């Protein structure tokens, strides 16, 4: 019999072991994502040879002085690269949000859309920009975050008052509440647009609502990277508690998971991730739904593997979705949400037909 005191208090050696076991997958994942970002840099409508791309990178990052056409430089540095990085962040953020919500709600259909978080963020953003709520003091992203949290609060209290106190029943209630919440917020968004926006604005907003990477700037890149890294660390830290939710909230509590606290922290984190992504690129569907299933199919159920895998798959998927949206119609850029839905919906249908949560 092993004495129980042997398990006490993590030490510095624990931290060392943690990094020891982490560096390989971390570097592997980062390499894959960087390769995908590089593809995003190299592929596009305007043909730019790879050597020019590398020269631009050298100029901008290491201050080298290669002679490069200013237009090429602009396309590569301020258009393709920003889009690719934001797409990577967005894909990773939405995918890990989906993993968290599917685990916490024990529902294969859970994702930021289900809880109405995306819809709420859209409403908040539109309220801040078009309707001039807050007299210009409220920025689009602050509006989106406020909207996401408001939507979440409404959906959760609706689920609560509908009697979702207990584990199993709670899952159903929150899904239904989420549907009601999404409908309400989408209607509100339409109402605000119809009331306050002129036709040009309306067209722009509809485009953005479908998920649109145009006009992404380096400031957006910074915000997206910081928020995704923080979100990833918080979520990966909770990998083991998330595993414990496999058999429901009571089972999680009985193996020592502080259920309320874990739920609160993780749901706030997904709300933050979703709001940040919606405020930068609009609402992109299916990533949070399909990628976690794909990742589960490949690496299995253990969240210690599932979370990093979903982050990498989501990032790569959205980078290539973005590339596709840029080149599929010559001279025109499609909203990226159209591409993700066109790929995601059939994949999701296939998952449904397989019948099992893989």
């Amino acid at each position: 019999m092993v004495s129980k005191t042997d398990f006490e208090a993590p030490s510095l050696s624990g931290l060392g072991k943690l990094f020891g076991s982490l560096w390989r997958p971390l570097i592997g994942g980062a390499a894959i994502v960087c390769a995908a970002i590089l593809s995003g840099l190299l592929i596009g409508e305007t043909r730019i040879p790879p050597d020019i791309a590398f020269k631009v990178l050298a100029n901008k990052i290491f201050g080298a002085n290669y002679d490069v056409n200013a237009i090429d430089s602009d396309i590569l540095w301020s258009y393709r690269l920003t889009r690719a990085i934001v797409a990577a962040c967005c894909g990773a953020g939405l995918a890990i949000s989906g993993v968290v919500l599917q685990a916490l709600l024990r529902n294969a259909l859970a994702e930021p859309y289900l809880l109405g978080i995306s819809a709420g963020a859209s409403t908040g953003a539109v309220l801040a920009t078009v309707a001039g709520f807050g007299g210009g003091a409220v920025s689009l992203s602050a509006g989106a975050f406020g909207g996401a949290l408001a939507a979440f609060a409404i959906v959760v209290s609706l689920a609560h008052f509908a009697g979702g106190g207990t584990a199993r029943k709670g899952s159903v209630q929150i899904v239904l509440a989420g549907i009601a919440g999404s409908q309400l917020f989408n209607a509100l968004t339409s109402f605000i647009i119809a009331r306050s926006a002129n036709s040009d604005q309306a067209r722009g907003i509809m485009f953005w609502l479908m998920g649109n990477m145009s006009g992404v700037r380096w400031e957006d890149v910074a915000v997206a990277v910081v928020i995704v890294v923080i979100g990833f660390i918080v979520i990966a830290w909770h990998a083991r508690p998330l595993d414990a939710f496999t058999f429901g909230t009571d089972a999680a509590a009985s193996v020592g998971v502080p259920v309320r606290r874990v739920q609160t922290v993780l749901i706030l984190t997904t709300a933050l991730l979703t709001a940040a992504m919606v405020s930068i690129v609009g609402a992109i569907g299916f990533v949070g739904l399909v990628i976690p299933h794909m990742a589960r199919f490949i690496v299995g159920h253990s969240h210690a593997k599932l979370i990093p895998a979903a982050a990498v798959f989501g990032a790569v998927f959205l980078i290539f979705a973005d590339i596709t949206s840029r080149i599929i119609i010559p001279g025109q850029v499609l909203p990226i949400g159209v591409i993700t839905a066109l790929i995601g919906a059939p994949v999701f249908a296939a998952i449904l037909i397989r019948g099992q949560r893989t």
Partner: protein
Amino acid sequence: MSLTADNLSWTSRGKTIVEGISLDVQPGEFLGLIGPNGSGKSTFLRLLAGLRRPSTGSVLLKGEPLKRMKQRDIARIMAFVEQQADTEDALSARAAVRLGRTPWLSPLSPWGTRDDDIVARALQDVQMQDKADQPWHTLSGGEKQRVHIARALAQQPELLLLDEPTNHLDIRHQIGILNLLHKLGRTTVIALHDLNHALDCDRIAVLMDGRLRAVGTADELLTEEFLYETFGIRGRFV
């Protein structure tokens, strides 16, 4: 005295489910909870396990109030097995048992070979070592329940709380599980729906309408009059 309920009550939406129960669980004893459906057995067990907050009263685990303990510390002393906890995930039996190590692990004290040993031993204790790598949905009801008990054992608890663990099983598996629990010899509190199983308990606590009606040995309690008053049946044990 390892686990004590002190005047426990639980009210949900204005309806009192458990009312004023006080009970001492003695170290090493096998305590059966019986009572008709809806008598509050499940809720009482969940209050004891710290999964519900009592409306009034308190639960003491080794003298310390549960509500002042961390969930993790509770789970290191006491394990709870639900009536039927299922999942659609295709995880293996072994992966399910691994969840029992959760209270002993953190990102900074990760899984080790010692945990593998504990999981293997727990699977052996419930005789599931041969099916350890089968996916969850291929296991029978009895096997699933054995895995849940193994998960509880992997927590290395001093106390086991079980909520009608044999409810959905056929008679052979019912007896198998109960024999297993007796053989494990831990301090056990178990809700039972079959009075026959109560005969083997060291003590029996009888719940009715959320109240504790009686505590005692099977011989003292399971009399003809008592069965009629509690369950509304005429009968006696032979």
